[in-house]
């Protein structure tokens, strides 16, 4: 579905991504794991159109989407749940969800119901300002907001960051549920253990290069991965 060819991205004056090639097959959960500064976020940000790659190509199905503006990328069916959630604190929960569907002109009531069924907590708080939610609820809102665009591919940047272990478990089971409903997932995580358990396909990114690839299970039993990321 998504193919990245020899992608190079400069970020903050350094070459953060040094020519990576990988694929995200349709309907799968794919994860990129790696340490801080390995270039994971930069990769997602360049797919989303927030940073322009220095070279390399990004294809969605047969279409070259490399140089498109972020709003065009969203309209192609790719969404990014940003690191640190970034809900709009002054907007209500329901406004946050509606703004996720900004480019859509059709009726949103079914999608709102769907998101509320995934996250019942959001329904209870739909008229509250998003800034008043707890960290876990904000993460749920960020995911729900992304779903409102009816994405084909949902990219998630560190969804477990700063959340309590129980909440992390919830989030991961929701990711699985969303995937079962036909949304392809590209997930980056420092919590490699959790990510590899749900991933069909995984890549290890080290200082801007992909060093290991395999299924989630393969990487879980890979000695190098165990030593570096699973402790």
């Amino acid at each position, binding site marked *: 579905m998504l193919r990245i060819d020899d992608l190079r991205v400069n970020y903050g004056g350094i070459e953060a991504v040094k020519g990576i090639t990988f694929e995200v097959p349709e309907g799968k959960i794919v994860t990129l794991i790696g340490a801080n500064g390995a270039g994971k976020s930069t990769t997602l940000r360049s797919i989303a159109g927030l940073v322009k790659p220095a070279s390399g190509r990004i294809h969605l199905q047969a279409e070259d989407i490399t140089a498109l503006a*972020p709003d065009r990328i969203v309209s192609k069916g790719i969404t990014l749940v940003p690191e640190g959630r970034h809900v709009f604190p002054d907007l209500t929960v329901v406004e946050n969800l509606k703004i996720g569907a900004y480019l859509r002109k059709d009726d949103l009531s079914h999608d709102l119901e769907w998101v509320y069924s995934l996250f019942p907590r959001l329904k209870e708080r739909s008229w509250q300002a998003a800034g008043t939610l707890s960290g876990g609820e904000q993460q749920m809102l960020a995911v729900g907001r992304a779903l409102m665009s009816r994405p084909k591919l949902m990219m998630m940047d560190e969804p477990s960051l700063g959340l309590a272990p129980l909440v992390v478990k919830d989030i991961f089971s929701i990711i699985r549920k969303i995937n079962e409903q036909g949304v392809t997932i590209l997930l980056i995580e420092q919590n490699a253990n959790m990510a590899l358990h749900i991933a069909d396909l995984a890549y290890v990114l080290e200082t801007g290069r992909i060093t290991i690839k395999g299924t989630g299970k393969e990487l879980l039993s890979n000695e190098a991965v165990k030593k570096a990321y699973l402790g």
Partner: protein
Amino acid sequence: MQYALSIFLSGISLGGQYALIAIGYTLVYGILRLINFAHGDVFMVAGLMMVYLSTALPLWLALPLMLVLTVALGFAIERAAYKPLRSAPRMSVMISAIGVSYLLQNLATYITGGLPKSYPELPFLSDSVVIGGVSTKWVTIVTPFLVIALVFALTQLINHTKVGMAMRAVAKDFETSQLMGIKINSVISMTFVIGSFLAGVGSMLYFSNYPSIVPLSGALPGLRAFVAAVFGGIGSVPGAVVGAFIIGMSESVIKGSPFSIFSDAFTFALLIVILVVKPTGLFGEKVTDKV
């Protein structure tokens, strides 16, 4: 009593006129964190355009055309002078705004030859009326009502439409707004369009009261409106409106006293007092920095 009424009337009409300018400052600041120094000059140019348009066209055509051209001017300034500096430090954009301000003033001097131009008499607005024994123009009475109607329409737009929701989102977070599919440049243009439109309406009201226009005519009203926006808490629309009415009223009171020469000094003294007590202004947000 009559004296108090005349002070009051001139205060609320001046306040309303400042409010329409102040909203332009506060909207642009809310989204770009930019003090658009050219805004007062856009207000002056709107007045001059009306002067020239009304000599060639009937008023019913000149007035809407003036508003359209003012909006186009605000839009063009943003595209030409601010948009190319989107990722530059904020100071560069501010210098650019000061440059545009001088450009508009110089252009006005070039076209008018620096001579005062008199604003056309508008039917109804420029007519005299006597209220409670005080003689004034209709514009004085109309201004506060028109301002309230426009502010009401604006708050509806901001709080209950998709564009308004996008404006509130972009004001908080450029990058995440882009991830929602919002074109931030369109939203930014929209704020300049709204701000310039209100400045155009404001110029019509203000210059009907003070019908002599020189190239510097936008400087002081612009500055006072800016003070009003800071006073009310810059970034907040209700703040700008309340601030403007307070500034207008206090200016009117001082101008009616033996100390009229100090009216601007007093305005700024009031601002300093407020900012010492409440640094974010009357309606300012506690956290203004972007995370």
